[in-house]
């Protein structure tokens, strides 16, 4: 930090305030009661830091800066306000990729300029640039996959070896630059080209089901890249915010992987997640599917003590969550205790189903996760399964030959009555037969999710 005249001092104090607001904001975001205020705190921190930076000593190019902020900010604001809640995961990937790209751009400006950097600074600029560029191209692929723009998972023999080769090439370029042996623009271009390529080739083979873990990992990586570029620029706000996100993001990635019953290494290097090929496995299921009419289910639920609803992504696809909440309110008026049981992998990423239910107006205290609710199924009169399949399949508990064996499931089969709303007969997303559907206490309510729930609403009203 060169001088201690007022502008520089003011900026330092502003960054300190920003760091405080960010950490408090994240802390508040980790409880549902205070979460809403958390983002406001963090948002205030961002405004303070951005405004202070306009007074940075020796700044030029103000018109360019303002134009870029206005264009980038406006597009992001409009897209962020408009996106459907079902598409939130890919938007997070997109915005995260932009952050990684920005970190890489800072590194590129410093490295193309050359000179004036110590060995340490040059090394950190290189590492941050590499990570940022990988996060940028990788996140864009993740966005494309979740958005349905990229449908295939590119896989071939020796893929891991090729990735290793690309990484080695990028490291060689980086070492040449950092050591000062050859920091020519051509080597710098090589570093960024190889890093971008690495992000592409790492992410292309990973299936859509595993994308949330990958996005979370890239989120942590972008944080790290920001922290490293913060070192290069001597910017404490970037170091602190970037590092906090780097470590919080790493922890969150592990939590997500655990919730999905996968290890991080498994996600990154085994190249599946499409759950193909496993369909043939699984033992035979005995019993028959027993259909039921909506009117009977309506009576059953209206006179129940306790109903537990198990929603899956199928409910969100059918846009049935608003109807489901309407049904719940009717049941609550009838004196029924209603709870929602959410499996960690319900939705496109852990916690996504909670967002979708919250959008429909379901209060979060009616929503319980697997550990909380599993003991309650035994006391429930009705478990209503809508759009969920594998997460309530009892074979995960007892059939060692099943591909989903060992996955924690919701014990819906323990309820006195199980009602499954399903479009038709046939196996689920993973192609595994669901033993729950054939149990003696299970009845099938066939039909489109939204229409079936509408019938249930009418049936309960008629009681």
């Amino acid at each position, binding site marked *: 930090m060169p001088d201690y005249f007022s502008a520089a001092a003011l900026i330092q104090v502003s960054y300190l305030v920003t760091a405080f607001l960010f*950490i408090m904001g994240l802390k508040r975001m980790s*409880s549902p009661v205070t979460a809403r205020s958390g983002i406001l705190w963090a*948002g205030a921190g961002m405004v303070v830091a951005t405004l202070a*930076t306009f007074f940075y000593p020796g700044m030029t190019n103000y018109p360019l800066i303002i134009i870029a902020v206005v264009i980038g900010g406006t597009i992001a604001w409009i897209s962020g306000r408009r996106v459907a809640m079902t598409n939130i995961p890919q938007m997070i990937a997109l*915005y995260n990729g932009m952050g990684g790209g*920005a970190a890489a751009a*800072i590194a590129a400006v410093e490295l193309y300029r050359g000179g004036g950097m110590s060995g340490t600074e040059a090394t950190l600029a290189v590492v941050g640039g590499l990570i940022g560029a990988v996060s940028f191209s990788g996140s864009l692929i993740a966005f494309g996959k979740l958005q349905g723009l990229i449908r295939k998972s590119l896989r071939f023999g020796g893929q891991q070896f090729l990735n290793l080769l690309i990484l080695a090439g990028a490291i060689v370029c980086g070492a040449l630059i950092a050591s000062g042996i050859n920091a020519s623009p051509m080597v710098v271009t090589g570093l960024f080209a190889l890093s971008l390529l690495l992000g592409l080739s790492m992410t292309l083979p990973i299936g859509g089901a595993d994308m949330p873990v990958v996005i979370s990992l890239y989120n942590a990586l972008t944080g790290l890249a920001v922290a490293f570029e913060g070192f290069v620029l001597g910017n*404490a706000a970037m170091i602190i915010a970037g590092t906090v*996100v780097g470590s919080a993001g790493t922890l*969150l990635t592990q939590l997500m992987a655990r919730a999905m019953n996968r290890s991080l290494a498994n996600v990154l290097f085994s190249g599946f997640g499409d759950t193909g090929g496993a369909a043939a496995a699984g033992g035979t299921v005995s019993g028959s599917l027993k259909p039921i009419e909506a009117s009977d289910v309506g009576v059953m639920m209206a006179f129940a003590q306790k109903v537990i609803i198990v929603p899956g992504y199928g409910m969100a696809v059918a846009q049935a969550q608003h109807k489901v909440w309407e049904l719940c309110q009717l049941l609550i008026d009838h004196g029924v205790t209603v709870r929602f049981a959410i499996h960690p992998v319900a939705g496109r990423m852990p916690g996504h189903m909670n967002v979708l239910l919250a959008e429909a107006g379901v209060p979060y205290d009616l929503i319980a996760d697997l550990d909380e609710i599993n003991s309650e199924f035994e006391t429930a009169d009705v478990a209503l399964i809508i759009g969920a399949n594998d997460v309530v399949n009892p074979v995960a508990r007892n059939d060692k030959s099943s591909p989903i064996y060992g996955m924690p499931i919701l014990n819906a089969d323990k309820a006195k009555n199980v009602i499954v709303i399903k479009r038709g007969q046939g196996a689920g997303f993973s192609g595994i037969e669901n033993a729950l559907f054939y149990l003696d206490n299970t009845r099938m309510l066939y039909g489109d999710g939204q229409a079936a729930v509408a019938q249930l609403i009418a049936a309960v009203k008629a009681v």
Partner: protein
Amino acid sequence: MTGIVALYIFMLAAFTGYEVIAKVPVILHTPLMSGSNFVHGIVLVGAMVALGSATSPLEKSIGFIGVLLAAGNAVGGYAVTERMLEMFKSSGARGAAGAKGKH
């Protein structure tokens, strides 16, 4: 800032990040990931400094893209996080809001 001070900051910030979210419930995983995504939008200040010090056309172009992307990260991250968290309400709050909203 000297190297060792920077390392101290790095270490303490890493512990802070870990501790702050160590007990986060699964229901908040998606909003929290989005929230931390917003926080690294602080890269905007770095991108502004980089563009602010750029001289050659190449540096200016890259710096411009950097600021554009960083502003997208910060603003977009805020917009989606705020939308998600705004919807998290308890039964008590819901009852009050619902009574007002009913026609």
